[in-house]
């Protein structure tokens, strides 16, 4: 059955070769004219402020979004096999999945209520 994946690997090799070739060749094809200002971070013309790599801290809100994403993405991953097999599971499968979704909706309502979905 794994033979179905061979074309994907082949396409991966072609795409990777193309991408690596483009990125690696870029410095050699184009001109190179040194200018210190070019190498500065772009800040609309003003002198860039020196800052640590990755520009230091950023809002914790992004982490919260990432956590919520994991919760719901795992829910979706559970929904897929159920959706495929639903016709053979009958009423039992339906009730089980509705209970699962309701459980997550409680968590969702809690997050909403606590302002986890607000962005300010």
């Amino acid at each position: 059955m794994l033979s179905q994946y061979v074309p994907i690997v082949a396409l991966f090799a072609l795409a990777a070769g193309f991408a690596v070739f483009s990125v690696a060749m870029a410095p050699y094809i184009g001109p190179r004219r040194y200018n210190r200002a070019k190498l500065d971070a772009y800040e609309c013309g003003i002198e860039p402020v020196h800052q640590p790599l990755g520009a230091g801290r950023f809002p914790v809100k992004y982490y919260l979004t990432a956590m919520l994403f994991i919760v719901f993405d795992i829910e979706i991953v559970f929904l897929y096999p159920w959706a495929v097999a639903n016709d053979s599971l009958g009423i039992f499968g339906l009730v089980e999945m509705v209970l699962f979704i309701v459980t997550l909706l409680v968590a969702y309502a809690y997050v909403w209520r606590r302002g986890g979905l607000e962005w300010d």
Partner: protein
Amino acid sequence: MPNLDSFGHDVWWIILIKVVAVFAILVVMTLFTIWLERRVVGRMQQRIGPNRVGPQGLLQSLADGLKLAFKEDIMPALADKPVYFLAPIIAAIPAFLAFSVIPLGPEVSIFGERTPLQLTDVPVGVLIVLACSSMGVYGIVLAGWASGSTYPLLGGLRSAAQLISYEIGMGLAVVPVFLYAGSLSTSEVVASQENVWHIAPLFVSFVIYFISVVGETNRAPFDLPEAESELVGGFHTEYSSLKFALFFLAEYINIVTVSALATTLFLGGWRAPFGLGTVWAGANEGWLPIVWFLGKVFAFIFVFIWLRGTLPRLRYDQFMAFGWKVLVPVGLLWIVVVATLRTLSREYDWSFLQSILFVGIPLAIVLIVLLLLPDKAAEPEDDETLYGIMPEQPETSYPIPPLDLIVPSIVPSNVTSNVTSKALSSAERTDSA
């Protein structure tokens, strides 16, 4: 009719032809889409658009790509060099891979070999597309982070938050399709749409899917990671030359891929439109279905361009709220409704009217009641804070003059020091008058 068993038997040179063909199709469609976008948006803005390079300006994007290759490749001094180098590669590869399971047509014969017009198909077909679109996020985040600059970092973060938020909506929107198709494999989803396209029973899913993918591909009106007025170019501000070209390529390939996936899941894939297949059997055979497929894909791409030409950009908090507070709950409820209807009508052998009666009407009543519930009680308006007395000033701050400050025309010399250190309140002004 190709199904899962039709895949995995190709000889090596057929695989090679298909791989090169998919690669070429994607690159050519990217170039064509960029040209189409510039022409269509030009028309929508009462301009002509590019029309000099080649007939009707068709070679314009190719010329632009070549020009980019001959531009200087700048490595910013503060950049994290290995990651900066890898990010465009990580963005581009999944974009190509996502297209590998999209069916372009039925079985045809290439040099005497029968093979389906699809690179490959696996039992988890659509998951491959979703996985690749998730991997693309890494390229964008790493590009923003590795540039060592503020604008790209903010653009990359915004992009990541946006992509993962709208991926939930997209993932939920395709679940009912699998309920109907009973399979995750793209060729079997197309096969299940022989009589009715999934867009008809699953219109809500289709709408959620389309809105989500507009967010997922960073297109207007959801193009916040590249909001020029706020973030210059977003995550690729510091990129130039072919590295920039790779990001651009990945972005447009993603647009093509999500349009192709929408065609596959909701619009019957490569099947002839308007029931043409029932009156003319040849419409769904041989090489012709590629035309139907490309027609549907470009119809989607046109809508993408149309949205860009019409709608202004959303504010970021509104945009995130829409994804989390509208698309996610609607998607979940719609899955429950579809599953309930489908299971009950099969178990109890209901007709269409009966299922409407037993499930649709109660659901409609619940929805109407929910809609009639009042929103949060309106906040009592405090007139005093708006008019008359000025709002209190924070204790520690420097003195702020009140909004209705009237500068006295003649200031006696003995009170000058008082006036400059303290703003006149309205009460004091009435006294002096």
